[in-house]
């Protein structure tokens, strides 16, 4: 406490500094934050709007306000500094400081407003619309957070607090200018384990396994609905705007009362809603009017506008139909958005629907399309290079590949069996020393000699399964433990940094040279992965390993040289590229939306 008092005194002496661009941690919360008070003068304010007690191991409560952004709002920081100087308060004068806080709160705190995008179908464009709106609002100076009640996806990411959330909310948070997404933005995550059972994660941590029926009957009405409400309230207390994303269609009348991802969530946040329809498949007017007319009257009243999305050709050719639709439902069409060809990370197996390759570059990279492939967004950055990424399910499709990547999977043992049955396992063994082979997570586990699963935790029954035998390593599943952590590191033989995250059950003991030195956990000599440079074999648990240029460049050099490293132009930084594309996405939506409608919507005047 004395340390904080001292730091605050120094801050008061330093005066207004606004964003501290020279700080190595900047921006620690969001782009544009005010850093005048890095240490909050009100700590511990004990105001439940801003923080909460956490119980320490010794049983003592400690005030935790790491999610509070209030003091980093420019207007608040200025007001507080002015009051403190004006009244000559000494830091630590708690009674008077409480008065300043009360006044600051009275002037500058208000509960945020919620806006929700619901879709007429899956793939209507909800996720990108939310990302675009987050970026538009962020650029307009709002403090904004994305939210989706519930996601069904194997493509999760790890937050700085070690929680799993959907990668899409992570991307939307980046669009909102936030440095860190957190578990409140996607409180429920369903990870399919088999055809009928899913692991349910609540606030980023495993909660339990549920069948579809149990999920709707037991989880949704109790802990599910509670989690949605709790986390919406949390975000609405801290942000100006919460931009919510629905799931699937809100008009699934057979499960209407059990659908906490759409209109029930909208009601909990009192959100105004926009309905987005993908016109690409046709029938969009029917989908729009049908969706609206099947909602309950109270839910229908929340729909303030309709967006026709993904229009190829001249958007104006839809104007007449759009006007007719608006007249029939009494809700305006507030945007006709053209097809935007912008490369952003993808979610869900939708990517693979009817498509087995990506890109048209000269270097062919074969990705093994495992039946339970997971975290295949790992591969997106390869599009930045001169590559064609081919998704492979048969040995003959490996022909002509300059490299082979074995991606992650939700079930390593089951997919290893598949690899043997399809003949792909032998085909990959045959490519050893001929082309680079990279295994990520489950793919890395498969590259070893054996997979020990004595308790059948992977779901294929207890026993040992031979791996590809490319590495002298063994993976074992001794307990239901799951490792979820973010890492930063560097290639051990030089070449630069990598950043990524691990999500896996099972551990690997390797007698190979390690691939990376981990620098982010504060321990010396921590390493990760396996490498046999001469044989071009690479294995790692790090998802996102290609995001930063270093490892991607190493792989491309090997491919380009047919084995021997060759110099190449510096690669692009994927995160920066994504950020530019988020701006382009926001530009695309901004120019297609009726902005006067949008301004009224934000002011709650509709």
């Amino acid at each position, binding site marked *: 406490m004395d340390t904080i008092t001292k730091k605050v005194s120094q801050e008061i002496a330093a005066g207004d500094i606004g964003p501290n661009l020279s700080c190595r941690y900047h921006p620690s919360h969001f782009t544009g934050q005010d850093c005048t008070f890095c240490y909050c003068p009100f700590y511990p304010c004990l105001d439940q709007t801003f923080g909460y007690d956490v119980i320490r191991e010794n049983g003592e409560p400690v005030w935790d306000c790491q999610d509070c952004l209030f003091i980093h709002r420019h207007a608040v920081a200025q007001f507080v500094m002015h009051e403190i100087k004006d009244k000559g308060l000494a830091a630590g004068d708690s009674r008077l400081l409480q008065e300043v806080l009360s006044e600051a709160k009275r002037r500058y705190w208000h509960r945020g407003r919620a806006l929700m995008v619901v*879709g*007429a*179908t*899956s*793939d209507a464009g909800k996720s990108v619309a939310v990302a675009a709106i987050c970026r538009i609002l962020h650029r307009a100076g709002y403090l904004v957070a994305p939210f989706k009640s519930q996601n069904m996806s194997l493509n999760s990411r790890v937050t700085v607090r070690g929680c799993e959330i959907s990668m899409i909310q992570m991307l939307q948070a980046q669009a909102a200018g936030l440095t860190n997404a957190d578990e409140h933005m996607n409180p429920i995550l369903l990870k399919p384990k088999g055809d009928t059972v899913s692991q349910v994660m609540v606030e980023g941590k495993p909660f339990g396994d549920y069948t*579809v029926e149990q999920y709707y009957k037991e989880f949704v009405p109790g802990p599910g609905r509670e989690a949605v409400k709790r986390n919406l309230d949390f975000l609405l207390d801290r942000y100006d705007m919460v931009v919510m994303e629905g799931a*699937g*269609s809100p*008009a*699934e*009348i*057979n*499960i209407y009362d059990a659908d906490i991802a759409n209109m029930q969530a909208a009601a909990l946040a009192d959100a105004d809603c926009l309905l987005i329809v993908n016109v*690409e*498949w*046709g*029938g969009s*007017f*029917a*989908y*729009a*009017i*049908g*969706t609206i*007319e*099947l909602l309950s009257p109270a839910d229908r009243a929340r729909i303030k506008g309709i967006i026709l999305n993904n229009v190829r*050709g001249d958007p104006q*050719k*839809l104007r*007449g*139909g759009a006007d*007719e*639709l608006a007249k*029939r439902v009494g809700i305006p069409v507030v945007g006709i958005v053209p097809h935007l060809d912008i490369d952003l990370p993808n979610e869900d197996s939708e990517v693979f*629907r*009817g498509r087995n390759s990506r890109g048209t570059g000269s270097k062919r990279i074969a990705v093994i399309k495992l039946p339970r492939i997971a975290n295949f967004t790992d591969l997106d950055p390869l599009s930045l290079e001169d590559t064609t990424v081919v998704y492979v399910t048969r040995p003959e499709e490996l022909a002509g590949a300059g490299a082979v990547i074995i991606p992650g999977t939700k079930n390593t043992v089951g997919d290893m069996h598949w690899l043997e049955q399809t003949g792909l396992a032998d085909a990959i063994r045959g490519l050893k020393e001929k082309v680079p082979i990279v295994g990520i997570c489950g793919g890395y586990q498969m590259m070893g000699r054996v997979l020990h699963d004595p308790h059948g935790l992977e779901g294929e029954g207890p026993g040992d399964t031979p791996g590809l035998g490319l590495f002298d390593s063994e993976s074992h599943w001794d307990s239901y433990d799951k490792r979820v952590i973010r890492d930063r590191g560097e290639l051990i033989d030089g070449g630069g940094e990598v950043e990524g995250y691990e999500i896996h059950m099972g551990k690997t003991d390797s007698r190979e040279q390690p691939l990376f030195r981990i620098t982010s956990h504060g321990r010396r000599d921590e390493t990760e992965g396996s490498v046999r440079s001469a044989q071009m074999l690479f294995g790692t648990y790090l998802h996102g390993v290609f995001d930063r240029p270093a490892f991607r460049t190493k792989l491309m050099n090997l491919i380009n040289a047919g084995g021997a490293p060759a110099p190449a132009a510096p690669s692009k930084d994927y995160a920066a590229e994504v950020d530019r594309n988020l701006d382009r996405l926001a530009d695309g939506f901004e120019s297609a939306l009726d902005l006067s409608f949008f301004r009224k919507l934000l002011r709650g005047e509709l």
Partner: protein
Amino acid sequence: MKAIIFLGTASGAGKTTLNAVYCRHLRQIGARPAPFKASNLSLNSYVTADGREIGMGQAFQAWACGLEPTIEMNPVLLKPTGKGTMQLMLLGKPVADLSSTRPMDREKVLATVGAAFDRLQDSCGVVVCEGSGSPAELNLQKTDLANVGLMRLRQVPAVLVADIERGGVFAAIYGTWLLMPPDVRPLLKGFIINRFRGDAVILRYGIDRITELTGMPCLGVVPYRALRFPAEDSMSDTEGRLSGQDVHQAFLDNLDRLLADATDAGLDLATLDRIASLST
């Protein structure tokens, strides 16, 4: 008149395939079916024995009927030729290049459609028609040929096919019904939910509600099957299984497999036959 038309709530809803599946059934019961689609917008065409172009989908359906494809089965073909222009082919012959400034002579084209439909009907037992895209495109409804156009022209009763895979299936059915012009709406006799995975019991409440709202009965929930059929346009799902040497026969085998599975899942062929006026 013995005829029926399969309409879709969107492109790729499964009209072409379910039309062909129904043709297989009609062929099995000796009803002498023939396929018909008033107009196709496609670059993917097939050439008839007398050297004229028709849509691939109708050729496929003709084979399902055990017939040689003929030009009557698809009298109008629109081929996109570039920015905003389309070549209009009538009975397999190019007759005009259309653009926004040079629209189609709709009366003349409709007369050709009607005459082709009549000739086909004279030569077969029942005409199994297919719509095009969605019949509820507010911006296209006035000039539509293959959906509302044909239904009005020959009072063809219709079944609506809706794809459940993308979600929003009840909205799609109800919305399409709502947007049908009032004079044509009574011709909508039922709906089929296509590509369903799982236990159809969970759809029960939704189906009943749609029937209550529209009066249309549900004629079946067709299970998803990874079976491959000829790709007619870029929207169609062309992944899936195809085995054997003769590709025609392989497609037909897949149709029979789907017919058997759909019948097992409760596809109401008796009601479809009644709608097509094959029985009363």
